[in-house]
C-alpha cells in the first residue's frame, strides 16, 4: 500500500483500491475495439448495447463476465460473425470469449476484491455500499455469500440521509462530474463516513477534483488553466488488488500501458439519437422529422377537398414531391405569448396573507376543519409562488375555501373586506384561479397536440385558402392565421425526402443548414 498524498490529516480518509487483471484488461481493450469498428460500420445499436454491458460489468460484482454479450448477436455461437461483421470483429470476439471463460474459471476480480475487503473490515466496522439499483442483486449475492458481516447497500440519496454515521463507504468506479459517476456528490459532501473506499479498475480516473468541494469547482470554472490540485483535507491511500491468475508478466505490462478510462472515452457515444427522415427543403436548408410525421400533399389537378392531403410522409417516399409541404409551427414564437391575458386581483392578497402565517397555527386551523396536510410548509411555499402563466393554488375548490377561511381574519383585517362579502370574495378568487388554469392548459404542454387537432379541424374550412396560397404564390413560405388563433405557421415546400438518418431529439423539426445533416447519416 502506498500513500499518495497526506495533507492536513483530516478526519476522513480516501482509500483507492485499484483492480488489476490481465484478462479483464484484455476484455476491455477488445470491447473498445469492437465498439469503434461497430460505429464505423454504423451498427450503433449493437455498439450502444455493448457499451452498456461493459459499464455494467465494470461496476457490478457479478460472479463472472459472461453476461457481456447479452442481447448482442455475438453471444450467439451459431452465427458466423466473420461473415456478418468482418474478420476484425470476429477476432476480438473470440479473444473476449477466451478471457470471459477465464473470469468464469477464476472469478470476477471485482467480486473477489470486494469479498476480500468486506471480510477484512466489515466484521468490526459498519460498512455501507453505494450501488445503483441495477447492480443491487449482484451486491446482494455478494453479501449473502458472506455470513456475519456488518454491511448493507444504499441506493440513493434519500436512503443516505436516513442513515447514521458509519465507518466505511464503499463505491465502485470513478468519481465523475457527469451522471456516470459511481457516487452522487451529495454523499461525498456530507460525510457521514470515515473512510471512503473506492474500487476502481486500472486506468479508471476520477475526472473531477474528488470530494467536490463546490468552491473548488467554481474555482476551476473561473480559472480553468490551473490544474485541479485542490486540498481536499483527505488522506488518500492507494492499494492495488491483483487478481490471482496472471497469464504471464510480459503480457501484463503490454496491456497495462494501454488501458484507459472507458467512462471518459465512451461518453461520446450519444444515446439521444433516434431514427429520422430528412426533408431537403432547398439547396441550403433541410429539416429532420420523426418517421411518423405527416406532410401536406397538394394535387393541383382536382378541385375537390380531397386534393389537398395531410398524410404520413413515408407513404410519399417514391412520389413526386414537387407539390408537397411540411407544416412548420413556430413554437418559439408561441412561447413568448404565454403570459396571462387577464388581471389577477385576488391572488396577491391571499398569497400575501398566506405567506405570513405561522405554520403551526395554520395547521391547527386546518385540522379543525377536517383537513390534515402533509408537508404543509412545502405546500404553502408552492402555493404562494408567483408564476407568469398559472396561479398556484390548492387543486380542489373545497380545499381552497377551507384554506382561505382559515386565514379569513387576517385578510379582512388587512384589506378592509366586509365580513359578509367574504364568501363572494373567495368565489371570485377561485374563479381567477380557474381562468388561469384554463389559459395554462390551452397554452401548456399539450400545445403541440392541441394545435395539430385544431389545424386538422380547421382544415376543411381553410383548404381553399391554403390551396390558393400554395398554388398562387411563388415564394417558398407562407404564413397562415387560422381563425381566431394566431398561430404562426409556415408551409415549407419539400424538394426531396431522404431516409437513413439518426438525429438527436433536439434537432427534430428544426430547420438546419444542409451541410449539417450529413453528420447524422
Amino acid at each position: 500500500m502506498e500513500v499518495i498524498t497526506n495533507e492536513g490529516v483530516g478526519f476522513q480518509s480516501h482509500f483507492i483500491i485499484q483492480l488489476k487483471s490481465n484478462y479483464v484488461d484484455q476484455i476491455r481493450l477488445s470491447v473498445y475495439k469492437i465498439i469503434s469498428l461497430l460505429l464505423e460500420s454504423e451498427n450503433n445499436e449493437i455498439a450502444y448495447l455493448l457499451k452498456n454491458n461493459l459499464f455494467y460489468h465494470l461496476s457490478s460484482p457479478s460472479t463472472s463476465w459472461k453476461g457481456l454479450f447479452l442481447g448482442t448477436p455475438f453471444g450467439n455461437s451459431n452465427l458466423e460473425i466473420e461473415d456478418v461483421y468482418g474478420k476484425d470483429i470476429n477476432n476480438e470476439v473470440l479473444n473476449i470469449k477466451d478471457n470471459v471463460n477465464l473470469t468464469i474459471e477464476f472469478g470476477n476480480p471485482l467480486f473477489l476484491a470486494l469479498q476480500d475487503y468486506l471480510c477484512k473490515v466489515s466484521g468490526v466496522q459498519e460498512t455501507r455500499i453505494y450501488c445503483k439499483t441495477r447492480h443491487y442483486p449482484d451486491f446482494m449475492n455478494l453479501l449473502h455469500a458472506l455470513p456475519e458481516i456488518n454491511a448493507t447497500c444504499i441506493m440513493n440519496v434519500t436512503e443516505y440521509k436516513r442513515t447514521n454515521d458509519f465507518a466505511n463507504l464503499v463505491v465502485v468506479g470513478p468519481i465523475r462530474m457527469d451522471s456516470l459517476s459511481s457516487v452522487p456528490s451529495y454523499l461525498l459532501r456530507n460525510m457521514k463516513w470515515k473512510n471512503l473506499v473506492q474500487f476502481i479498475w486500472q486506468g479508471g480516473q476520477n475526472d473531477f477534483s474528488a470530494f467536490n468541494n463546490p468552491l473548488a469547482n467554481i474555482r476551476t470554472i473561473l480559472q480553468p488553466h490551473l490544474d485541479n490540485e485542490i486540498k481536499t483535507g483527505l488522506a488518500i491511500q492507494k492499494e492495488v488488488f491483483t487478481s490471482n491468475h496472471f497469464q504471464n508478466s510480459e503480457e501484463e505490462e503490454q496491456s497495462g500501458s494501454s488501458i484507459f478510462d472507458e467512462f471518459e472515452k465512451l461518453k461520446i457515444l450519444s444515446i439521444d439519437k433516434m431514427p429520422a427522415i430528412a426533408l431537403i427543403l432547398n439547396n441550403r436548408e433541410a429539416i429532420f422529422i420523426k418517421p411518423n410525421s405527416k406532410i401536406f400533399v397538394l394535387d393541383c389537378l382536382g378541385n375537390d377537398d380531397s386534393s389537398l392531403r395531410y398524410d404520413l410522409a413515408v407513404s410519399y417516399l417514391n412520389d413526386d414531391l414537387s407539390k408537397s409541404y411540411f407544416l412548420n409551427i413556430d413554437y418559439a414564437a408561441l412561447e413568448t405569448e404565454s403570459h396571462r391575458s387577464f388581471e389577477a386581483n385576488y391572488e396577491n392578497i391571499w398569497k400575501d396573507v398566506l405567506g405570513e402565517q405561522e405554520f403551526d397555527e395554520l395547521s391547527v386551523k386546518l385540522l379543525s376543519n377536517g383537513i390534515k396536510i402533509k408537508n404543509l410548509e412545502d405546500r404553502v411555499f408552492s402555493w404562494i409562488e408567483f408564476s407568469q402563466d398559472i396561479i398556484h393554488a390548492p387543486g380542489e375548490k373545497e380545499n381552497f375555501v377551507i384554506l382561505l377561511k382559515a386565514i379569513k381574519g387576517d385578510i379582512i383585517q388587512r384589506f378592509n373586506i366586509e365580513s359578509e362579502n367574504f364568501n363572494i370574495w373567495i368565489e371570485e378568487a377561485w374563479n381567477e384561479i380557474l381562468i388561469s388554469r384554463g389559459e395554462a392548459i390551452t397554452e401548456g404542454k399539450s400545445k403541440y397536440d392541441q394545435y395539430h387537432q385544431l389545424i386538422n379541424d380547421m382544415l376543411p374550412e381553410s383548404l381553399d385558402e391554403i390551396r390558393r396560397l400554395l398554388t398562387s404564390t411563388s415564394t417558398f413560405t407562407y404564413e397562415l392565421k387560422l381563425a381566431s388563433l394566431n398561430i404562426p405557421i409556415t408551409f415549407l415546400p419539400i424538394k426531396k425526402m431522404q431516409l437513413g438518418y439518426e438525429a438527436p431529439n433536439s434537432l427534430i423539426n428544426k430547420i438546419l443548414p444542409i451541410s449539417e445533416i450529413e453528420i447524422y447519416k
Partner: protein
Amino acid sequence: MDVKSFVKHIFNNNSIEEELFNLGLNWEEKNIPQTVLINTPSQKNAAALILFGLVCRDLCDTGKNNKAEHFNELILNAEAYLNQCRNCKFSCKPEVAECGRANKATNELKNIQDSRVYRVESITSKECKKSICVSYSKKATKQTPFKTNVNRYIQQDYSEEWHCKGQSQLFCNGEGSLDSELYSKFTSDEICTDNLAFSYSGLVYIGSHKKNSERNANTLTLKVNDKTYPLSDLLTLKNSVVSRLLYISALTPKGLDKHIKARTVVFEDIYSFKLIDHSIFHNASKFIIVNSEESDLKLESLYEYYSTNRQWFSINEELTEEKNTHLSIKGLSVLVLDEA
C-alpha cells in the same frame, strides 16, 4: 472577560458557529463589490450567523444607518407613486408595464406618534425645499357632519418620525432601541449609540421565506447574562422596532427595488440566489452560503451561473488565502471573488 473569550464562551466552544460569526464581524468593506462563497457543512443557521457578525460590525460604523437618506427615500417613493404607480393601468405588473420597478410604490405613510395611515397627496416645493403633503380623512361625526380631509406636510428636518407603511420605522427613542450592553459584548470596537436607535437597510438578508429563515436562525439561542436570546431577535429580524437589516423573501420579492442601496447582501442558499435579479445588487458585496446539503442540481445551476458570467469575476487569491487560514474547521471554506 475580554470580547474574544466571551464570544468563544457564548458559542459554547462550538467553533463552526464562532468562526461564521467572526467571518461576518471581521469582514472589511471594500470599494469594489466582492462575492464571498462560503462552503459550510450542514449548518442551517450559517447565513444568520454571518449576518449577526455583520450586524455587530455595522453597529460600530457611524455611517451605517438610514438617517441621511431617509427623507430622500420618502420623496423618491412619493414621486414614484404620484408619477407612475397612481395612474398605472397594469395593477403592478412591472414586467408588462416596463416601468423598471419591481414593486408598487406605496401611498401609505405612517407617523410613529399615532396609528393612522396617511395617504400621499402631492409634493410641494418652496425655495428648493421639497415637502410631501399627506392626508387622512376624518369620519363624519355629530359635531362635524361632513367627512373632512386633514393635510399634513412632511419636511426634510421633520421627517424622521415618518415611514412607509409596512417598512420598519427609522428610529425609536428609549425602550425600543437596541441594548448597547448586549451588543457591545460581541465586538471589541465601540458601538455608535446612534445606530442602536436607528434602522439600517444597507444590509440585506435574502432567504426563500421569512418564517423559514427565522426558524433556521433560531436553531441557535445565545445566553448572555442569564438571559436567552433567539438569534433572530439579535438580528432584529423579529420582535424589534428598529431593524438593522432588510429581509427580502426571494419567492415574493417584496421590497426589492432598484433604489435600495444595499452595501452587503447575504443569500441564505443557492435557491434564493438563483431567484433574485442580481442587477439590483451590482454594487453590493454578496455572501452566498453553499451548504453541503444542497442538491447536485442546485450546485449545477450555481456552476452554470459562474461559467456563463465568468468574464465578470476574478478570484481574489490573497483574501481567499487569508480568510481560509483563519478557518480551521473541516468542511468550512471561503472563496472570494472580485467583481469587474
